[in-house]
């Protein structure tokens, strides 16, 4: 990866990583259904969404880290969600919009750090922007605006932790492996 630009190879690479991620999340879809079934009688089903949120937001930081071009995190995250639409996810057309929203969220973290911090600072910014922006989206889409303060704080913290674990910690572990194996020839 000597030249970081929108070359054909980089575009294909982003798309491939996004599809791999999309596929792995899609495979974990049963987990979401199981969690939802378990939590619905308690009225806590939105927690299923927020517990797994980070998993769905992994493609963004991962592609953003590997291909260091402005816009790559957005593209990766969006394509990852497009995979789910075509495989037939539970969310239908709204997966496109979730992809757009999550893509903007992931990208924004790298933008705010000037595309210079491909370390914990950039990743943390990305985690934070992803959490806030996706939460704002669910504020409207999933009717979070009608919940009480306690429920909202609970959901927000759950989402932040989930995003931290998957989009932060797991992404970092993966990129550490990549850096150690020196496949990215930086």
């Amino acid at each position, binding site marked *: 990866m000597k030249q970081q630009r*929108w*070359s*054909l*190879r980089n*575009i*294909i*690479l982003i*798309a*491939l*990583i996004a*599809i*791999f*991620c999309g*596929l*792995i*999340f899609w*495979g974990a879809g049963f987990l*979401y*259904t199981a969690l*939802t*079934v378990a*939590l*619905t009688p*308690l*009225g806590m*089903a*939105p927690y299923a*969404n927020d517990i797994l949120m980070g*998993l769905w937001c992994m493609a963004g930081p*991962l592609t953003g880290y*590997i291909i260091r071009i402005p816009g790559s995190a957005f593209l990766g995250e969006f*394509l990852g969600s497009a*995979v789910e*639409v*075509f495989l*037939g996810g*539970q*969310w*239908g*057309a*709204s*997966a*496109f*919009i979730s992809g757009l929203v999550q893509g903007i969220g992931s990208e924004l973290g790298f933008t705010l750090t000037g595309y210079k911090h491909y370390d914990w600072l950039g990743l943390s910014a990305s985690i934070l922007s992803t959490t806030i922006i996706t939460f704002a989206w669910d504020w*409207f*889409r*999933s*009717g979070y605006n*009608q*919940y*009480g303060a306690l429920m909202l704080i609970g959901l927000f913290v759950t989402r932040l932790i989930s995003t931290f674990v*998957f989009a932060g910690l*797991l992404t970092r*572990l*993966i990129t*550490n*492996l*990549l850096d150690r*194996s020196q*496949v990215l020839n930086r």
Partner: protein
Amino acid sequence: MNAGLKLLLTIWIAIEISFVTNLTVNLVVIGVSLIILLFTKIKWQSLFKLFFWPLFPAAGLLVSQLFYGNGGPLFAWILFTRIYAYVLVGAIFTETTDLTTLALTLEQNFHLPAKFAYGVLAAFNLLPKIVEQVKTIKTAGLMRGVVLHFWSPQLYFKAILASISWSENLAEAMTSHGFVEGQRRSHRYPTRLNYLDWGLFIAVIIAFQLLIWVATNSQSLF
């Protein structure tokens, strides 16, 4: 309708129903989408899946709102029907569009650079191989007594290694078949975007705004 406009329309409608909290609008969207889907000769099995799987998230949101929401039962049912509206509108798009047509029209009619259209298309065409690859990685792990879960960094690491080598191969293959980045291209399969497409697009948007207007101004009826 042109695939690119259809995508735009799908996203447009989905965004609007996210902000318009109205039961009638959701029900009309569901009804109309269902009729269109039946005209596309959708398989009964797929139709059943379309109604069965969203039941979980939809019921989850419904019950949660009833227990902890301040919006009342009407609001809860709006959220319930909203999920179905998303899924059915999305299904019209996926049932009637294939990715190749979408990529071609985005390149020819919507000025998407060819490298994006064909690059992403090439990657998506590898989907069956990617499914295979994930299985291969997991099996290879099992042979060494390692179970790879969706939270294992090694699974993603190996997937990314495969992506790197495949992207190089694909890009080289495309270049050797005469693909030049940024070069003007002639088209074997020209796609069309004519006045009829635009007319239909605008008509649907206007009809949808009318529906929202009527539904929100006649709340007393419901």
